[in-house]
């Protein structure tokens, strides 16, 4: 309450800041109420994850105790060793990683190419083509899932990698993001200069445009990777062989199995979360800025 009042004070007469920037006038006093709110939120966001991390090192019987045990005692790695010994965890991990890496690489390339074309060329039908592309973002996933599955089955496509990767490598959102970025980041003069030097249009793209798009490529790469790596619904439909499960399917199968192997689920979740968290932390700035760029500008 008092924080609110002190913040309101400078609005009064004579309160406009004549002090040098950076000095502690009332307006720059740190908002205490804001910290209380934010820290409470951090607790709400992080506590569940810390609980999972801590519980993954507990014996099964210690996971659900009342009152809950904050730290594992005794500490054990048993859940992890048992997960790796009894489940094809590395197989799940391999499927997920291969699918995510291949999808990411292809979709970043496809989106950058199309985004560049929409940003920097004038051609007939451009506006219509762009609108058609853009509106596909509003097609609900659940709507195409059934017919797409039917189509793949009818076409005799049984390869899990094909089904998991190919239908999803051209996200309209990625093209939109690339176009937004390329419009600003690729100066026409640079393109003209490269053309005068005799570069082909595709050479222009690979040698001049791609390097300029690097921050946006990073953002799109993380976005695609996370989308693919975390996807659950589509793999659930197309993958039936447990040996070819992706990580989310594998973890789900542990929980769905008899006796709900919560201990293994927790260990698996922690391990599965590591790559996405590392990737996010490394490329966080690019991802967050890249995601918001299009929304804020348009």
């Amino acid at each position, binding site marked *: 309450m008092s924080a609110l009042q002190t913040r309101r004070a400078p609005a009064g007469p004579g309160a406009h800041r004549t002090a040098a920037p950076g000095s502690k006038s009332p307006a720059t006093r740190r908002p205490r109420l804001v910290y209380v709110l934010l820290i409470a939120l951090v607790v709400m*966001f992080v506590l569940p994850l810390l609980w*999972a991390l801590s519980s993954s090192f507990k014996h099964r019987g210690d996971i659900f105790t009342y009152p809950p045990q904050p730290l594992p005692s005794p500490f054990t790695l048993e859940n992890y060793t048992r997960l790796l010994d009894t489940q094809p965890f590395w197989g799940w991990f391999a499927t997920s990683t291969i699918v995510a890496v291949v999808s990411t690489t292809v979709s970043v390339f496809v989106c950058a190419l199309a985004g560049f074309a929409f940003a920097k060329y004038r051609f007939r039908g451009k506006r219509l083509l762009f609108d058609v*592309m853009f509106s596909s973002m509003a*097609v609900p996933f659940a709507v195409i899932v059934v017919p797409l599955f039917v189509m793949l089955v009818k076409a005799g496509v049984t390869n899990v990698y094909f089904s998991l990767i190919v239908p999803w490598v051209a996200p309209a959102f990625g093209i939109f993001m690339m176009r937004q970025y390329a419009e600003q980041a690729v100066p026409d003069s640079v393109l003209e200069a490269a053309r005068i030097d005799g570069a082909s*249009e595709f050479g222009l793209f690979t040698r001049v445009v791609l390097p300029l798009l690097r921050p946006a490529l990073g953002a799109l790469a993380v976005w695609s990777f996370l989308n693919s790596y*975390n996807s659950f619904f589509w793999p659930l439909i197309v993958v039936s062989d447990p040996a070819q499960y992706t990580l*989310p399917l594998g973890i789900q199968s542990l929980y769905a199995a008899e006796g709900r192997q919560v201990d293994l689920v927790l260990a698996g979740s922690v391990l599965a979360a590591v790559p996405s968290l590392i990737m996010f932390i490394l490329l966080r700035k690019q991802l967050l800025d890249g995601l*918001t760029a299009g*929304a804020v500008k348009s």
Partner: protein
Amino acid sequence: MLSVARRRALAPYAFISPFYLLYALFLIVPIGIGGYLSLTEWAGLGTPLWVGLDNYTRLFGDASFLTAIVNTLLYVLFSVCVVVPAALLIAQALNARGLRGRDFFRLTFFIPVVLSPIIIALLFTLFYDREYGLFNAALRGFFGWGGIDWLGEPSWAKLSVMLLVLWRWTGYLTIFFLAGLKNIPRELYEAAAIDGAGRVHTFFNVTLPMLKPVTAFVAVTVMVGTAQILEEPMLLTKGGPGEATLSVAMFIYREAFTRQQLGYAAAAGVVMFVIVFLIGRTANAVLGVGREK
């Protein structure tokens, strides 16, 4: 050999062609197949049997489908009325002048988006557990009583799904609002302060109008996204108890893959497509997305 000018004119078509090829194959064709299947009865084997509009008339008499629509609309309503304002509030807090650790906070709130929904849903299933869950344990700790049947009682189950949506998506929306807030020129606030405007007044007369494009974007994203909600109810409650948390997307999944009624599921898909399209269109019209062009 093509001339340079000719190649330059054809290049953009070549560049966008991979996308449109995939788009036609994996979006347009499935939509066409879905439209056709929706007029048939088919269990996945043999030839689909043409039934005309039967699936549609059946859908609108199907209590489960209507429940799914109502539940989905409730989720959408919750997202718009609770998740969006929560995200705006957090963004406003993050935008406070002189705040330290802004990046840390922003990052932390975004973490749920990074994690697999399956991990999150399973974790929350454990928290919601009636006997051993953390939520009831916390209630017991603070109030001496904690016997809420989070996932077993219809109203609580709906709320449980919504709380998960709140936890999972607020941080994601926050970053858009925060980016929008940062784009508001400082001078506007200074002018408002000189005019003697209070915080609330400033918020409604400076911040909100300036945020309109971002708000519109966020609202449309959220509506279209929540209209498709699947993972949260599916993993937390399997749509239950009864059908208390069933969503339209879950309904489609259930009809297609557990009941083998592919034609019926396709018809539900077409209806969903229309609903989502209308929601998107209405939101666009009301909020004026893209109107500035």
